[in-house]
């Protein structure tokens, strides 16, 4: 007993306690649910069997059913469009802004930080604001586009099946751009200035310098940011809840929203779990890319 106490006060027992408790907590509340999810994807779980521990085992029935459903493929395609569209928009605009603020005029870093308000706001509020901005008859976006002569009639962003997914993409780009910009700024400022001086001495113009120094030096940052973007877009839920609710008729539904919808609106927890398992697999893949690209940080 005495040895145990002295290990906790003076030795590695201290570390073991500090790290053991949180990992146990995380195992119970994240690890177990993950495993439970896989189990449920092989079971039939509905309102009636929800509370019981022994449920009918259906093998791969849930998976097979899922791919027989007509909406599955469109929803998966929507997910891909949502992810690619969001990441592309966030990254391109974020990189542009980061390059602009990199010129470092007085007030640059403060203003740059201000952009991050879009990221700290609750997703549901962001969704509510964009819902209003994108409103068909009275939305301010339609008004501006009309004034600029880009459109003649109003676009019904939320209710037109060919626009509803893009409405969420638009809001998501707004939400995530600032985070991309901040991280890209960090990457930019880590490039040693003398590289640019050396390149200038070698006769490279701004265009050359961007392609031959900035981009190659930013490679691992960019990799990490794209992976993070993938992770964040696949986590996006609130915007769907606040703007389109996946509609009309699943035109803007994506896998992560659908998984919740199956479980909590259709009470088909087994199938909700199945979609979750599939998507979790994708997210974990993205996470591994992220971990790889920040590996030098992990090593300290």
């Amino acid at each position, binding site marked *: 007993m005495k040895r145990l106490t*002295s290990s906790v*006060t*003076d*030795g590695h027992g201290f570390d073991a306690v500090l790290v053991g408790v949180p990992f146990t907590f995380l195992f119970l509340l994240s690890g177990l649910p993950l495993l439970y999810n896989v189990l449920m994807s092989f079971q039939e779980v509905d309102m009636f069997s929800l509370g019981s521990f022994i449920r009918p085992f259906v093998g791969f029935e849930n998976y097979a059913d899922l791919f027989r459903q007509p909406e599955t493929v469109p929803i998966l395609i929507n997910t891909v469009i949502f992810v690619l569209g969001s990441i592309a928009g966030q990254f391109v605009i974020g990189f542009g802004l980061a390059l602009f603020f990199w010129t470092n005029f007085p007030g640059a870093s403060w203003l740059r930080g201000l952009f991050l308000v879009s990221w700290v706001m609750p997703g549901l509020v962001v969704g509510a604001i964009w819902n209003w901005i994108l409103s068909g008859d009275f939305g301010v976006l339609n008004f501006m586009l009309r004034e600029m002569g880009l459109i003649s009639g109003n676009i019904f962003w939320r209710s037109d099946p060919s626009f509803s997914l893009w409405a969420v993409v638009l809001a998501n780009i707004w939400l995530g751009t600032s985070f991309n910009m901040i991280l890209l700024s960090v990457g930019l400022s880590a490039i040693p200035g003398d590289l640019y001086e050396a390149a200038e001495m070698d006769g490279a113009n701004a265009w050359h310098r961007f392609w031959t120094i900035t981009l190659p030096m930013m490679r691992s940052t960019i990799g990490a940011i794209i992976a993070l973007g993938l992770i964040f877009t696949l986590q996006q839920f609130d915007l769907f809840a606040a703007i389109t609710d996946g509609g009309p008729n699943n035109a803007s539904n994506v896998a992560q929203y659908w998984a919740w919808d199956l479980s909590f609106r259709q009470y088909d927890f087994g199938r909700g779990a199945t979609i979750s398992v599939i998507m979790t697999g994708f997210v974990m893949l993205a996470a591994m890319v992220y971990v790889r690209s920040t590996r030098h940080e992990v090593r300290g």
Partner: protein
Amino acid sequence: MTNQIELSGVNKYYGAYHALKNIDLAIPKGSFVALVGPSGCGKSTLLRSLAGLETISSGDLLIAGERMNGVPPRRRDLAMVFQSYALYPHMTVEENLTYSLKIKGVKKAERKKAADDVAAVTGLKDLLSRYPRELSGGQRQRVAMSRAIIRNPKAFLFDEPLSNLDAALRVHMRKEIRTLHDRLGATSVYVTHDQVEAMTMADHVVVMRQGIVEQHGAPLDLYDRPINRFVAGFIGSPAMNFIDAQSSADGRFLLLDLQSPQVLPAPASLPPDQRVVVGIRPEHLRPAAGGEEGLEFDVAAVESTGSASYVTAATSPEIVVVLNERSAIRRGERVRFAVDTRQIHLFDATTGQRLDVP
């Protein structure tokens, strides 16, 4: 004289890596011991094991006669000066100095007095209310020293405390630390990679390599009688010249393997045709007087510091000569250098061990 610190058969493993190999060492009370060696030799690990920041894997560690294996640092009553100084950035100089007293439960007034006393000795009197970030490098170093002194510990441990200072301050602090050590009658263990620091400060130098104590003894003993080729090369600056050689058939001469064979009289009669390594310190070569025997070679470069001249010979292996004077020797000249046979060191060609001349 009693031993303040005693190590016997101490081993330290990091997984499969054997960091300290069977170390035996006794540090008498009141002595100043320097641990030197190239980086990775285990000197810092040894010091940290004394402090209790690393636990030794086997062997015995005694401090003031008490077995200290596995005793946490706070119960060892040793003070340590870190390379980075490790001053607590959120505390003033005074709080830094008296932190250990505060933990011990010393009253505030007494702590204040102790801080004032130490500050008077180390010249920090006007800086007591400052924060570490407001101090210069040298001042921080003093605070780190004072923080150790105030404890009146069983021993002082120094982990390369001067390596972050500029050259002039380093030379100054060398003397100051030694003076403080003598005044306090303390026992000090001093880790450094700089053999000049070790030679000038310590009573006793311990040369380590790859977790092994290669040799320990008084500084000048190490200089005069290095036990093997490694210690010979490590102690002394510039480093000793090593030349492969063979004794002559009658054992009275050394045939040196420079590009062109050269001959030196052997310090004593050797077995015939034995392969050896000859070691000659750069400062022990001098221009030969007329007719004197010695080594003759073309000069490849002459560098002068003003007070001394460094002559590099165009031989293979390269030979360096230090002359404590301005020299008229020019590059490209052919010069003959003489050496006193008593200052020639001989090492076994295969083991590198010193060959003692009977």
